[in-house]
């Protein structure tokens, strides 16, 4: 069906389970895009495979629905080649932290200006409810034959350890709060990570809306919370505070922005130090063809450019 260009939602039928937390994420992200007035043609949602991954089809901006675990490197190629685009990754907790774990860490290391939104439901939704890397040890959701015997990884701590410069957690059912986080993540220059607690009503009967309702606290509601790194000396202390809050779980689960550091150069900036005219001139817009379908390197300049490889045979002999 032809998408309505005026809306940030496509008119496809959304085939998530009724009550799924993903609906909240979808609303929050479309609202964020709308409020930021992002041009759909200059915005790309890159998603992995899972229930979460389908979101790329439901938002009326460019959508690249990739492979399980690989949304981040796809997004990296898109962003580096066309740095004008706003690139947002959506993935499941299995997608990003299990099979995609190496890419998750690598993106943090690069601090590339991409937002990563993790649909954190504690299960592998689309494959019918196996334990995901965020499911707590010893838990047995109704979809598991046996108790989970793998420890969870804390996404906030992992993101901080990897080098993300914007680290936040949102809750799928608190759409407005989530939307605000998304807006800040999108406008942040650097790698941003948003862990979104997302009830899976079909497979996860432990991490339910009820479970979260009792535990969620907003960081903003803690007196004097300020995640922003003021200068390099402030980094360590902000990092520790972020870790401290990020690790809380059993009785209190914090949402909001844990860490925000604008002092680290984004990867595009580092590149631009090396590639003089980048990002203005970039892979997606730099010329490669001259007239008559000729390459811009032709008989006239080839030898000059590759002079190190050309040997002019000595005269006479």
């Amino acid at each position, binding site marked *: 069906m032809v998408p309505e260009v005026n809306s940030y939602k496509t008119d496809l039928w959304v085939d998530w389970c009724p009550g799924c937390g993903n609906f909240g994420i979808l609303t929050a992200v479309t609202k964020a895009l709308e409020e930021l007035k992002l041009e759909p043609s200059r915005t790309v949602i890159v998603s992995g495979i899972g229930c979460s991954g389908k979101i790329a*089809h439901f938002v009326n901006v*460019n959508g690249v*629905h990739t492979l399980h675990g690989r949304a981040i490197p796809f997004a990296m190629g898109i962003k580096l080649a066309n740095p004008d685009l706003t690139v947002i990754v959506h993935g499941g907790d299995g997608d990003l932290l299990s099979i995609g774990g190496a890419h998750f860490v690598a993106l943090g290391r690069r601090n590339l200006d991409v937002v990563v939104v993790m649909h954190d439901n504690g299960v592998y939704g689309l494959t019918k409810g196996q334990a995901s890397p965020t499911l707590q040890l010893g838990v047995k959701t109704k979809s598991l034959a046996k108790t989970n015997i793998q420890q969870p990884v804390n996404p906030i701590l992992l993101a901080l350890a990897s080098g993300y410069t914007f680290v936040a957690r949102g809750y799928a059912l608190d759409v407005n709060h989530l939307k605000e986080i998304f807006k800040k993540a999108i406008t942040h220059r650097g790698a941003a990570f948003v862990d979104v607690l997302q009830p899976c009503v079909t497979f996860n009967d432990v991490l339910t809306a009820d479970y979260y309702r009792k535990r969620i606290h907003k960081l903003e509601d803690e007196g004097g919370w300020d995640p922003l790194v003021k200068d390099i000396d402030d980094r360590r202390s902000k990092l520790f505070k972020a870790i401290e809050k990020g690790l809380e779980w059993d009785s209190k689960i914090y949402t909001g922005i844990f860490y925000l550091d604008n002092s680290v150069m984004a990867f595009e900036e580092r590149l631009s130090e090396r590639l003089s005219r980048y990002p203005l001139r970039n892979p997606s817009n730099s010329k490669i063809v001259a007239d008559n379908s000729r390459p811009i390197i032709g*008989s006239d300049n080839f030898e000059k450019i590759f002079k190190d490889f050309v040997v002019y045979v000595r005269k006479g002999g």
Partner: protein
Amino acid sequence: MELNEVSLILGGAQGSGLEASMLILSRALAYGGYGVIADREYYSNITGRHSYIHMNVSATNIPRSLRYPVNLLAAMDSESIFTHFNDVANGGVIIYDRGVDGKRISDVPSMEDALKLRVLKHLQDLNIESDVASILTYLEKERRITRVGVDFTRWLRMLASKFELQPRVLSRYVSGIIVVTTALILGLDLEYVKYGFEAQFGNRKEIVKENLYLMDLIKEDLNQYGGLLQIKKPTINSDKVMLATGNDFVAIGKIVAGVRYQSYYPITPAADESFLLEKFEVIEYDGDVIGPIIVMQTEDEIAAITSAMGASLTGSRSSTATSGPGFDLMVEGLSWAGMNEVPIVITYYQRGGPSTGQPTRGSQSDLFNAAFSAHGEFARVVLSSGDHLEAFYDTVNAFNIAERYQVPVIHLLDKFLANSLATVPVPDLSKVTIDRGFTSNGGKDYKRFDLNHKISPRAFLGTLNTVMWYSGDEHDEYGHIVEDPENRISMYSKRIEKLQIIESEVPEEIKLRLYGEGSPDYLIVGWGSVKGVALDALDELRKAGYRGMYLDMKMLYPFPKKEFLKVISGVDPSRVIAVEHSYNVSISDLISMSTNVKIVKKVAKFTGRPMVLNEFVEAIIKLLTSKEEYKVLRYGA
């Protein structure tokens, strides 16, 4: 007697500067007007294992293959002598360090047991002691091989005192000594060598000076050996050549083709290509800038291919380079490229498998992996290149095909070509064009997978007023997931049937090339880097009275059935011989499968070392004159 052609080996420990020797000597020879091809053999090791350069230098033409025995062995250490003494021709020359005269095989810990035992056995059979001096004496006596013993240490000491150099840097000058000594023996004008040093060290003028000082010393000391293996004055008529490796030519081809995103995860023998591209990230030229080319070292090969696909979606020409283990990891991504009709080039350098195998040795054992790996059915193209110059043109072809047909293209090369250095004519840029295929400016109701076209017009991510979707799931014309069976049939067929379009549209010279004399009495079929040895073999065999042709299969998938059948039609099936650096000689399987022509005669080599002319010619003759069907070549240390 002056020689038209000289084969030589430069041997030494990995890390001792052999590569520099190869480059300087080759530059000197190229400058002098000679043709050069040089293969580099080395272990998967950084320092200490035995490494060597096997070169063929010609005064009359650009050499295409390597030969044994060699006329000259320049040995930096005793291991080189133990390893190669048997490969020196009668009447040849061995340059070596007199300091190792007393070394015995048992003194060399870096030699592998298998080789040690084999050499010891051989020496025992010959009734010689296992030390350097005994071997050289034997060679001198029995095989008229001149030993040119030199005193590295003395020269280096003199150099050190003259230029006040630290002892620990002295070993760097051994590569120069090897070059000069070799040049002397070949009777080269030492001006060429001077050029070699200058070209190699550029503006590091001090180093040039030091090496020239050494040159003078050596010239004086070794005067008596000058021209011992005098090579003829060159008669190749060309005022310039390129001197580069296969890796270099592919990188240069990518730059000319307009690559703008290259991803890689380090792996031998592919990484050098990316290393060169990195140097050309931004080409400042006449006040203008070409590029940027973003060269990304990714976290693994999965990220390499997926990020390259991402970049491709934005309209930038994108590629990645790898070898077997890395390609294996890209296979799932390849399948996504097939499903989403993403133009992308994968440069695939084969090395010895399976698994880590022989990571620094060559092979052609990955044809079926390139052609058939990945689940599901979709269009892809596999191209191969027979030599350095072809590698350049084919790189451009690969991008053009990828974009024109919106398919992944695998450019299949190998370590032999990748790492061998050769003098090559400068590419003819007037033959090169860029074909970006059927593009679109998008618009309000843009359909990326429009079924009204056999190849849907492609708009790029970021196109004004355009949104589009991609999905690895089966999708409708917009790119949205659809499981409907009728849509499935249309989309699936459209994607696969591009293969037929490709088969019919791609020009014949990209598909295959035929060399040699018409109405041959035998035909060799091969692909990739066996071309050189095959062509030289045709010449040799002609001298022996055989009229042959060589068919170089360049487009391996989709297989050009029609053109192949045309070529093969006149030839007696029992006189067709397939050659490949593998055990299975899989090209013959591919041919059976595609055309039902069965090739029963095969030449295989899978030691990781390249086929050399003598063994190749012998094998062909054997196959043509006997009932034997399968010859395994095994020459080379």
